[in-house]
């Protein structure tokens, strides 16, 4: 494998890691506040459909992005009402919302465009899709050996949302570890009774966390439909919400580790697209389905605890009952 191919794969890795990273950070906020969310997948899917449809109908990818965030927030609100207000089973609520999203996105897209559940193609020229940004000096530094092409091919030339996702990593770290809100959020996921005793609203904090999850999943879904691809197709998220959950566990619910976990899973997805390269490197013909299954197999190995023990937030999944 030559340097050029490696750069191509790393470039694809970054593209494919972005939705995982946004969804993973989304799950991080929710789970750190004590609300399990296996509905990341559904929220991404709803956001993908809404953003692609609205971007096409209004001709503006920005309005589409807002619509995607809005759709994701609606699903987040239902999850919040079910699991915080009515203290329902958070896992079941997540599963239900995933099914709901899977069906309703196709119904709405079919009703709007009559293209079998797809949205019409979006394009950068018409302003309905995110274009690629060239970072400063990328052209000028291209000639520098080794690092120049790395900067030009891998780091530069992505859509804005990729850089937003990367910026979310230090931001999430700062919010969770250096702000009053973040401290309370983490506390409510470990010991809600103590937070309640201190006079801070458990319900309010948890709803805030679920709303942040909604916004980040909205970004992830909008990125899928308006940047990574040019439009919405049925089931286009293809289990990324679950891979993001796996990355979250792998990262032990920490933002910076989440970045590395998502890059790793994105790298596996990028490899699955290039079976020829894999074959050249390992010298054995590897079946494509095995490459497709690799992120899931790795997740199981991670979950099995062979790579360090992952301890979830202590109050995760348990509804809080005041004055028990």
């Amino acid at each position: 494998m030559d340097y050029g191919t490696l750069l191509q794969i790393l470039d694809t890795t970054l593209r494919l890691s972005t939705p995982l990273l946004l969804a993973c950070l989304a799950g991080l906020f929710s789970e750190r506040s004590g609300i399990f969310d296996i509905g990341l997948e559904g929220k991404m899917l709803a956001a993908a459909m809404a953003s692609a449809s609205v971007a096409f109908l209004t001709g503006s990818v920005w309005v589409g992005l807002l619509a995607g965030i809005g759709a994701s927030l609606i699903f987040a609100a239902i999850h919040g009402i079910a699991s915080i207000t009515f203290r329902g089973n958070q896992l079941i609520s997540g599963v239900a919302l995933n099914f709901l999203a899977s069906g309703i996105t196709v119904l709405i897209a079919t009703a709007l465009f009559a293209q079998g559940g797809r949205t019409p193609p979006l394009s950068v020229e018409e302003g309905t899709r995110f274009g690629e940004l060239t970072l400063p000096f990328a052209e000028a530094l291209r000639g520098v050996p080794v690092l120049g092409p790395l900067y030009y091919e891998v780091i530069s030339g992505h859509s804005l949302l990729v850089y937003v996702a990367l910026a979310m990593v230090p931001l999430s770290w700062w919010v969770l570890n250096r702000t009053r809100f973040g401290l309370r959020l983490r506390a409510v996921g470990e010991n809600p009774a103590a937070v309640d005793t201190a006079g801070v609203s458990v319900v309010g904090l948890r709803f805030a966390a679920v709303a942040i999850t909604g916004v980040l999943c909205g970004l992830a879904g909008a990125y899928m439909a308006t940047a990574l691809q040019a439009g919405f197709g049925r089931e286009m998220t293809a289990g990324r919400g679950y891979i993001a959950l796996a990355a979250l566990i792998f990262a032990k619910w920490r933002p910076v580790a989440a970045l590395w976990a998502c890059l790793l899973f994105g790298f596996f997805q990028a490899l699955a697209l290039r079976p020829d390269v894999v074959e050249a490197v390992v010298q054995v013909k590897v079946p494509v389905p095995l490459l497709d299954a690799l992120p899931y197999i790795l997740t199981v190995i991670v979950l099995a605890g062979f790579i360090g023990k992952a301890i979830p937030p202590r109050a995760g999944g348990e509804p809080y009952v005041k004055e028990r």
Partner: protein
Amino acid sequence: MDRLPRWADVVLVPLVSLTLAAIISALVLLSIGQSPVEAFNVMVEGALGSAYGWGYTLYYTTSFIFTGLAVTVAFHAGLFNIGGEGQAQLGALGVALVCLSIDWPHWTLALAAAATGAAVFGAAWAAIPAYLQAKRGSHIVITTIMFNYIAAALLVYLLVDVLRPDGQMDPASARFPEGTALPTLNQIPVIQQFYAVLDAEGVQRVNSKGELMFTGVPANVTLFLALAMAVVVWALMWRTRLGYQIRAFGKSEPAARYAGINPVWIIMVAMLISGALAGMMSVNNVMGEAGRLLQNSSEGAGFIGIAVALMGRNHPLGVVLAALLFGFLYQGGAELGLILQIPPEMRIVVQGLVILFTGALDMMVRMILTRIFGLFRSQRLGAA
């Protein structure tokens, strides 16, 4: 909080949840420009309006009984098995390997062997997540989801590279031998009279070989196997020591531990039974209908088991009734696609809504009902 009367808890809560799901579904239909009343009529006519429709409704029902029971057994142990889909796909592989292994002389033998193969493969696929949960504390919800994806990839590989006969284009196994064909409802004596093909004068028509003609439907003898398994699961859960241990463990793990129940053993057994039941579903579609192994053979039936188990309140009788309801929904939903051009995804929407209302918003329904009952009670006290 006041408690609901038992009859309200068993009957009224699911009915109200179902009604809420139906109302939202109707709103969804309205929002995509369809008439809910017309859609409902089409569904009833298509699924229940003829023996032919029942032949399909009961075919779906059969699959859903198996997967519903699978989720139920795991639920009783406090485990949420979302892996029914993957376990069913592996069960399908078991069915195919058994059916293709020898030239079966009679379908009864083939059915017994295929059901065993399906159960073993399904259970094996559930065994790894179960072991990881029991021994290493890996969350079974995430591992079973991962195993669904791994199962799908494994079957793609096997069907494309291993099981596909030479010279065949589509990724599927070879056709099963004649002896594995299960009798469908139109081939079973007595029941087949419902499927008699009549001419204008009401006399049953005869084909060129002089045999009486019947309309073919996919519902087959597996239906009776499914009903038998419902009875077996009931007996297991409520009439045996093991069932008691599983339920005790699901209610309170510390109490079960204190009573000397081995958690590793219970998690393993409950998940193996669950996986076996999910796997057995594939007898119905792979052996009873397709006659060969196709890609994505279970078509989401494993997931519907979740809705069926929640709707059926985790009781085998409830599961059978809920499976019938979802059988109606699936056959009716297919008719919606044919007649009103409503995408079949409508079925997934209803499925999601049923899970949401019966599983996650259960407390909301209960709170509303408790308040209503409270009103009646205070009125009665006021009158007295």
